[in-house]
C-alpha cells in the first residue's frame, strides 16, 4: 500500500516534470524562433546594405552569390552554436580539416551519440564545415598556455562548496520535476541536455549556480522558477547521486 502511494506520487511528479520541461522548451523555442527571425532579418539587411555600398549602380550576380553564401553561413553558424556546443567546445570541429564526405559522416556519428540537428540545418551545416574547414583550409597556429592559466573546469573543485544545508529530499523531487525531462531521471543525459551525475561541474558550485541561474544556450534560466535555496537543494541531491545505483534505476 505504502509502495503504491510512493509510486503514484513519483508518477505524478514525473508527469508534472515532463509538462514543465515541455512548457519550458516550448517557451524557449518560441523565444528562439523570434530571436532567430530578428537575427536573420538583421543579417539580410546588413548583407544588402553591404552589397549596395559595394556596387551601388549594378546588380552584379556575383554579389548576389556572395550574399547568399554569407546568409547561409549565418544560418549554419547559428545551428552549430545551438546544437554542437552541448558536449564539447567548437575547437573540436574548427580544428579539423575534412572532406565533404568526412564531415557528413562526422555529423551522422554525432547524431548517433545524442546530438540533435534540425533536418533543415543539416545541408547548410555540412556545406559550411566543408567550405571553412575543408582539406585545403590553412590551419592557424594553436592556442598556447601554461597549464595553470588554462581555464579548465575539469580539475575538481571543492565538492561541498555551495550546497551546505541543502534539503536533499526536496532537491531530488525538484530535480525530477524541473530538470529530469532534459538531463534524464538519473542525470545520465538525453538528447535535450547533457549528463550531470559525477561530472566535474558538480564540484564547482559557482559554475553550477551560474548556469542554473542564468541558463546557457538551450539550458533555460531557472531563476524565475526556482529560489536560490531550491537550486542549492538540487545541487546537494545531484552530488549525492550514485551513478551506478542511478544507472540501475534508469535501466529498469
Amino acid at each position, binding site marked *: 500500500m505504502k509502495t503504491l502511494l510512493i509510486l503514484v506520487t513519483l508518477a505524478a511528479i514525473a508527469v508534472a516534470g515532463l509538462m514543465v520541461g515541455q512548457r519550458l522548451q516550448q517557451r524557449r523555442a518560441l523565444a528562439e524562433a523570434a530571436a532567430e527571425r530578428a537575427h536573420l532579418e538583421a543579417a539580410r539587411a546588413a548583407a544588402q546594405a553591404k552589397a549596395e555600398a559595394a556596387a551601388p549602380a549594378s546588380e552584379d550576380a556575383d554579389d548576389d552569390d556572395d550574399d547568399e553564401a554569407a546568409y547561409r553561413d549565418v544560418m549554419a553558424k547559428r545551428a552549430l552554436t545551438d546544437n554542437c556546443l552541448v558536449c564539447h567546445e567548437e575547437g573540436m570541429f574548427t580544428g579539423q580539416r575534412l572532406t565533404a564526405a568526412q564531415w557528413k559522416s562526422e555529423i551522422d556519428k554525432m547524431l548517433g*551519440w545524442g546530438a540533435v540537428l534540425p533536418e533543415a540545418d543539416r545541408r547548410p551545416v555540412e556545406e559550411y564545415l566543408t567550405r571553412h574547414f575543408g582539406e585545403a583550409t590553412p590551419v592557424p597556429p594553436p592556442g598556447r598556455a601554461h597549464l595553470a592559466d588554462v581555464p579548465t573546469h575539469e580539475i575538481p573543485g571543492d565538492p561541498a562548496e555551495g550546497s551546505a544545508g541543502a534539503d536533499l529530499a526536496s532537491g531530488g523531487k525538484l530535480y525530477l520535476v524541473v530538470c529530469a525531462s532534459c538531463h534524464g531521471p538519473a542525470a545520465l543525459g538525453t538528447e535535450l541536455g547533457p549528463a550531470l551525475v559525477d561530472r566535474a561541474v558538480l564540484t564547482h558550485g559557482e559554475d553550477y549556480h551560474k548556469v542554473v541561474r542564468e541558463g546557457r544556450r538551450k539550458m533555460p534560466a531557472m531563476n524565475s522558477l526556482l529560489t536560490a535555496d531550491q537550486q542549492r537543494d538540487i545541487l546537494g541531491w545531484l552530488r549525492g547521486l550514485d551513478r551506478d545505483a542511478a544507472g540501475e534505476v534508469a535501466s529498469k
Partner: protein
Amino acid sequence: MASDLEHRPDRFASDRRGFLAGLGGGLIGLGGLGRGAWGLARADEASDGADRRMIVRTERPLNLESPSAALDSFLTPNDAFFVRSHHGAPAVGLRPWEVVVEGLVDRPLKLSLAELGAMEPTTVPAVLQCAGNGRGLFRPRMPGLVWERGAVGHAEWSGVRLAALLEKAGVKPEAAHLHFIGGDVPPTTKAPPFIRSIPLARAQADDVLIALKMNGEPLPVLHGGPARLVVPGWGGNAWIKWVRRIVVSAEEAQTFYMQTGYRIPREPVPPGQTPDPKSLVPVEWMNVKSLITSPDLGATAPLGPIEVRGVAWTGEGHVVKVEVSTVEDPTWREAELLDEPRQGSWRRFKIAWTPPAAGSYTLQARATDSKSQVQPEVPPWNKSGYLWNGYDRVPCVVSRA
C-alpha cells in the same frame, strides 16, 4: 552571449570571439575561427627562448599537447605532461574512490585508496603516448584531434601491480580479458562510455600497474587520478584513466572504444582506403620513434657546433640506436644514447652537429630498436591516424656567427 567561454581570463577571451562575434555580426570572421594569438610569451620563459607553454587542442573536454621543448628531460614534469580526455574528468571527491575487481574471480574485491596504498608499491618509469600522436601529420587527413609531435611524455608511475590484485581476487581458469571501466561520464546515454579491455596475459606481467602516483606526487586528476592503468610499451588507449571497476571476462570488451575505436589494419592499406573491419586489430604495442627536443622548431642558432638533443622509445624491447642528419645532407650519423635500455622507458640522445654554412636546415632523427624496427620516413596510412612514427623533423636557421 552566455557561453562556457566566459570564465576565461580576459587574455583568453578575445581570440575566440571570431566564432561567437561572427554569429552576432553575421558577416565577420568567416573561416577565421582560429586562436592564433594567445597573449604574449610570459616573462618566466626559459632563457633559450623556447616556448614551453602547452599547446591547447581543446579546452572542453581538455586536450593539451606538450611542445617538444618541454620534453627535453628524462622525466616530464606533471604540469608539462600532455592531457587527453574523451569525456572530461569525472567529479573526483564527491565520494570515496573505490576500485572493484569482479567477474570471473573467486573473491570479488572492493578496495579503498587506503587499502590499495597499503599494498606493496612498485615504481616503473614509462612512456605514455596517445595512439593518435602525430595524426595531424598524416595525409590524407582524417577526423580526430590533430595531435602533432607532443601527445607523449615519460613519468615514473607508482602503484600496485595489477598481478597482485588478480592474485588476491583469484582469477578463474576461463578468464582471458580484463575490462576497465573508467570514471568519465559520457554526455548522454547514447554516447559510448570509455571502456576497453586488455588480454589477461599482458595484465599479469610484472610491469603493469594500477598507478596512484606520478613522478612521486599523488596522481593528478587530469592524468587519471586517483587510479589509472599503466601498461608500459602500449599506446595510451590501454592506460585507462579513473579506473573504478575491473571486470575479469572470457572475451574482449564489446564496446565502441574497443571494437570501433583504436583499431588498426594488420597489413598496411593504400592511403584513403577503409579496410574490412574484420582485418583490424586493437592498437597495443607502440612502434619505434624519436623526437628532437632541442633545437626548438624554427630556432635560430649562430654558425658553429650545435648540440642536437632528443628522446627515443619503442613498444616491445628498447631503443638501441638513434641517427641524426639533415634533409639537405641526409648522411646519417649515430647519436650518443643516455639512460638505461629498459622496455617501456625512453632514452635521451645527443649529438653535436656543425652546419657547413649559414642557412636554413631541417634536422631529422630516426631510431632503431632491439627488434630491428627502424623508424620509417613516413609510416603506413590508416584511417584513424594511429601510431605515426615518421622521421622527426625540425626546421631551424643557422645565422652567420
